[in-house]
């Protein structure tokens, strides 16, 4: 004691005089600091995201081996089962649904314990789908910026074109007649019946979308038709059942849809493309991370 520096005569003053060392002050400060530390730690421990403690977190209805059953999921199941708002259900009804959900959770956990996630075909498929779904889900949670969407639209404009429309006739040249002569007459405005031409009946319903005309005419004939101008007549086209002639009444080619009218599709396609890239990236990552050994005869 006697070796310590002399203490100020009034201890009450000395304890606040930072120029003088005081043992009691040090103890007080240390105690205060540890209390604050404990309080911060405690607050963090009991409120941090994902913390599971002995108490059931406010958002959960139950913890099964520390796996939470969300109140929100419970409410959805209760209201679906009883078809009334939550407020109109009894405690017994809620408990029954929760009991069923706990049972399900127990069986899921037991199944994983037994390795069913590896064995069962349905579980495997569901897991693959759910993993893919998770990636898609995460990719969608941020809406792309407007200029990203506009750029995408600019480089994929043909995707947002309207479906083309055609109105045309398809004539069958009677066997033995001269196809070239029939075409020349049609081009001069002769009536098809006067030339003995018969419709094939495949495009007689009036205006059609391109996709429908392609289905009706078949790819080779439609490829010719889509290039024809209004009011023109094709050359005779040899087909297995004889010569065909296409007579175009009106060909409305696809027109690009303005961005504002295609915006919902642009967003959907942009995100689908992002998801596809993320899926591919995820696959590469999984492969890189994994230890895959392949039998020598299959390498």
């Amino acid at each position, binding site marked *: 004691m006697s070796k310590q520096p002399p203490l100020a005569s*009034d201890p*009450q*003053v000395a304890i*606040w*005089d930072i120029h003088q060392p005081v043992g009691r002050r040090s103890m007080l400060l240390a105690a205060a600091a540890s209390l604050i530390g404990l*309080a911060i730690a405690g*607050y963090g421990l009991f*409120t941090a*995201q994902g913390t599971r403690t002995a108490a059931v*977190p*406010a*958002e959960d209805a139950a913890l099964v081996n520390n796996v939470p059953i*969300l*109140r*929100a*999921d419970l*409410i*959805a199941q209760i*209201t679906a089962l009883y078809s009334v*708002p*939550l*407020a109109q259900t009894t405690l017994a009804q809620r408990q029954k649904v929760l009991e069923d959900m706990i049972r399900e959770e127990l069986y899921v956990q037991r199944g994983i314990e037994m390795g069913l996630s590896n064995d069962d075909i349905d579980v495997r498929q569901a897991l693959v*789908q*759910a993993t*893919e*779904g*998770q*990636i*898609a*889900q*995460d990719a*969608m*949670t941020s*809406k792309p910026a407007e200029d990203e969407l506009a750029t995408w639209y600019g480089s994929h404009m043909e995707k947002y074109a*309207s*479906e083309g*429309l055609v109105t045309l006739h398809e004539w069958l040249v009677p066997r033995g007649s001269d196809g070239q002569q029939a075409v020349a007459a049609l081009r001069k405005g002769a009536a098809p019946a006067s030339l003995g031409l018969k419709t094939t009946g495949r495009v007689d*319903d*009036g*205006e*059609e*979308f391109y*996709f*429908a005309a392609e*289905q009706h005419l078949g790819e080779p004939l439609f490829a010719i038709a889509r290039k024809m101008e209004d009011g023109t007549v094709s050359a005779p086209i040899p087909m297995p059942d004889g010569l065909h002639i296409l007579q175009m009444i009106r060909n409305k080619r696809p027109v690009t*849809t303005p961005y*504002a*009218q295609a*915006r*919902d*599709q642009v*967003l*959907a396609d942009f*995100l689908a493309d992002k*998801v596809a890239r993320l899926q591919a990236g995820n696959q590469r990552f999984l492969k890189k991370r994994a230890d895959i050994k392949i039998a020598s005869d299959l390498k």
Partner: protein
Amino acid sequence: MAVRLKTRSAVWAAVVLAIAGTTAGLSWWRASAQADVLRADPDAILRDPRLRSVALTNGKRVFDKHCAACHGPDGRGDITLGASDLTDSDTLYGTGSVAQIEEIARYGIRAGNKHGWNLAVMPAYASKVPDAAEALPPQSPAQIEDLTQYLLSFTGRTTDVSAMKRGITAYTKAGCWDCHGRDLGGDPAIGAPNLTDAVWLYGGRPEDIRRTLQRGRAGKSPAFARVLTAAELRNVAVYTASLAHPGQETK
């Protein structure tokens, strides 16, 4: 000098303690109110002044950051994305309860989460296979015009009565009723809109309707299950519900 030092220090200590105490008290009050918001029946929160104030304050912040980009800062929606107007009482899915909105915020609509809504899309009738899930007949341009005229009739905007009459038959033949109902009233269990009212997800001009029928529609609302906390999801659901029930908010 020593006495002056003493009083000054004491004042400072008191100030620091007061601030720390208030902060701790406030955050405790907030945490406990937030916990009560999570434990409450979601649809009772707007009627409880204490819970409502916590949920609305925090919920607005989440909405501005995560929902406003599509649904608009005021929640009035965006017809160019088909993002629903959240301020009217007209709902595509369910009845617009807080619990149902929270489910949509968590699991989304057509968002890759199997808990979410993903039961039907609007088929693209101007294509070879209008719908991937159900065999439906493609429609010709004339039929699409007839259907458009028929749909316009419910808001008194038909311009071609005989086309409108043909549209009635086309509605049945094209299988529209399967999703939108025989009365065209829609189906909240699969998100098929009512076609007889003046509320349009994608706009109700004739060209908007034609575009819908020709190319189909499939709006997506993201699943925020892994992005937002349980508290944020509950808060934003309460806030979103309050947009459609402004009366309850001011009561």
